[in-house]
């Protein structure tokens, strides 16, 4: 018990715990759409592009997250528009766009070399450094994203499963996919605190991918994903405290462990364990 409570004596750990729990929740809920709609690469791209916004905000001395958020949303909508209006594949569009915007961020950062240390937190995440304002921002944005997901639950489900039929039924599918991209951008910015630009895609994809192995229902997938996301955030933060390691990496590795456990014990397919045993039996039979 003391093992769990001792860290909570320090205020910055409590703040970090609140922040990572909220981030784990919002990422794993939005991650369900990321996994089912194959948005992982877009998510990675938005995260990288937001770096340019953060550096610009740093240069002009306004809130770094607002700067990152503006560039992230613009990049998200830009990618959506390009992939809809031309026959360039969306992967190509993302590859071109996000590396360009990220490169711009790197260029600006290299011009202000003395600030590099501060900006590095955004690359790998440092949830231990969140202050009161950050907590307010994370809480507000998390509630906002979850409310939007709740309000448009059936529309987002329909448009994700069968966009053509959804459009034919009169749903505004283009607006819905833009909405989803904006939610994704906001979620990514919120999560930079915990995981940083490089690792944020894992927070989005891994819990949802694990949940996908364990259930056949959309609402079930969302619930299991949220549980894994929140659980990994809490376990990962404690691991970070006791191992004295970067929080982003421990949270992501905890979620990854959940994913492999889900894969091994998935009721959907013959579990990995049974397959391994069967393969070994076949080898033994052949050897005889």
């Amino acid at each position: 018990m003391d093992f769990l409570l001792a860290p909570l004596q320090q205020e910055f750990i409590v703040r970090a715990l609140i922040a990572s729990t909220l981030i784990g929740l919002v990422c794993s809920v939005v991650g369900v759409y990321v996994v089912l709609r194959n948005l992982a690469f877009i998510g990675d791209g938005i995260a990288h592009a937001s770096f340019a916004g953060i550096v610009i905000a740093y240069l002009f001395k306004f809130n770094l997250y607002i700067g990152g958020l503006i560039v992230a949303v613009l990049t998200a909508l830009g990618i959506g528009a390009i992939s809809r209006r031309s026959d360039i594949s969306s992967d190509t569009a993302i590859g071109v766009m996000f590396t360009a915007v990220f490169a711009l961020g790197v260029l600006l950062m290299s011009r202000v070399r003395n600030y590099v240390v501060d900006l590095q937190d955004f690359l790998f995440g440092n949830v231990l450094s969140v202050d009161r304002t950050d907590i307010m921002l994370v809480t507000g944005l998390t509630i906002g994203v979850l409310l939007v997901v709740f309000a448009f639950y059936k529309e987002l489900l329909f448009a994700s499963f069968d966009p053509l039929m959804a459009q034919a039924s009169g749903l505004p599918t283009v607006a819905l996919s833009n909405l989803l991209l904006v939610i994704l951008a906001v979620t990514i910015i919120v999560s930079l605190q915990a995981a940083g630009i490089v690792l944020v895609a894992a927070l989005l994809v891994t819990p949802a991918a694990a949940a996908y192995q364990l259930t056949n229902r959309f609402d079930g997938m969302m619930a299991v994903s949220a549980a894994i996301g929140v659980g990994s955030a809490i376990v990962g933060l404690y691991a970070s405290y006791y191992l004295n390691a970067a929080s982003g990496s421990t949270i992501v590795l905890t979620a990854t462990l959940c994913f492999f456990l889900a894969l091994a014990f998935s009721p959907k397919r013959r579990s990995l364990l049974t397959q391994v045993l069967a393969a070994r039996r076949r080898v033994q039979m052949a050897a005889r």
Partner: protein
Amino acid sequence: MSDERRHDHRHVDPGIPAAPQDHSHAVTPVKPHLHEHVDHHPARRREGKGSPNVAILCEGMCAGYYGRDVLDEVTFEVLRGEFVGIIGPNGSGKSTLLKVIAGLLEPQCGYVEVLGAPPGHGTGVGYVPQTELVNWSFPVSVFDVVLMGVYGKLGLFRRPGAADKRAAEAALDEVGMRDYAGAQIGELSGGQQQRVFVARSLVQDPQLLLLDEPIAGVDATSQHAIFTLLEERQKRGMTIVATTHDLSCVATWFDKVLCLNHRVIAFGPPSEVLTDETLSATFGSHVLVIPEAQAALRSAQH
């Protein structure tokens, strides 16, 4: 499929001038007579220029993607209560044509009217997309999928209620898939998936149902089940348009056939349209008519 039934649906409103109609079912001339009744009164277009018994009116329509035209000057007219098949080789524009009618793709030129409204603006149109475009591993049950049929008319922020769930169950009954309501959609066979998709569009109780390749990859039993239930709906007044590249079912089920290869090659009853000339004009010289299909075609022609 009798003519009387078709006339049942003709409620000619004296207020709306009936457009001149071509009732000759001869093999439609290759060159569509599109500029014959071009509307010179743009204001009238908004009211719809087809007569009330016309379900789909398409005049000199062209459409495509990214500036490439797939459909070229397509002109035809589907009456209410008809069961029309669209045939043509892969890439001939069958799906594109359905998308234009469903309001999913804006035509580049020409005039299109669906149930008296511009495509995508009216109600009562059901659309069943090609099943191969769907992600079957998506975590939804058969019942969830059918319930999606009511989402469009529910509007924002409203969840489906008890009446909607009953409608979904009734639709599952109609296609004979009630027992599979709880199954994950990917566990079903191709034919069963197709029946579930048909059920989903029937929940909306559409006046016009558009089906994209409803029998592609579907076993014979399910093919028969699907066509039988569609015919049942047709008897109750539904207009049905389906694309297919399976020629063997054409003569049996469709009232009219539209042979499409980027443009309309022929349009009319199967007995008149399914000739060697039109088929080779539609499919190119390499059309392979298997003996059974040929026999079916011949019996349909007599």
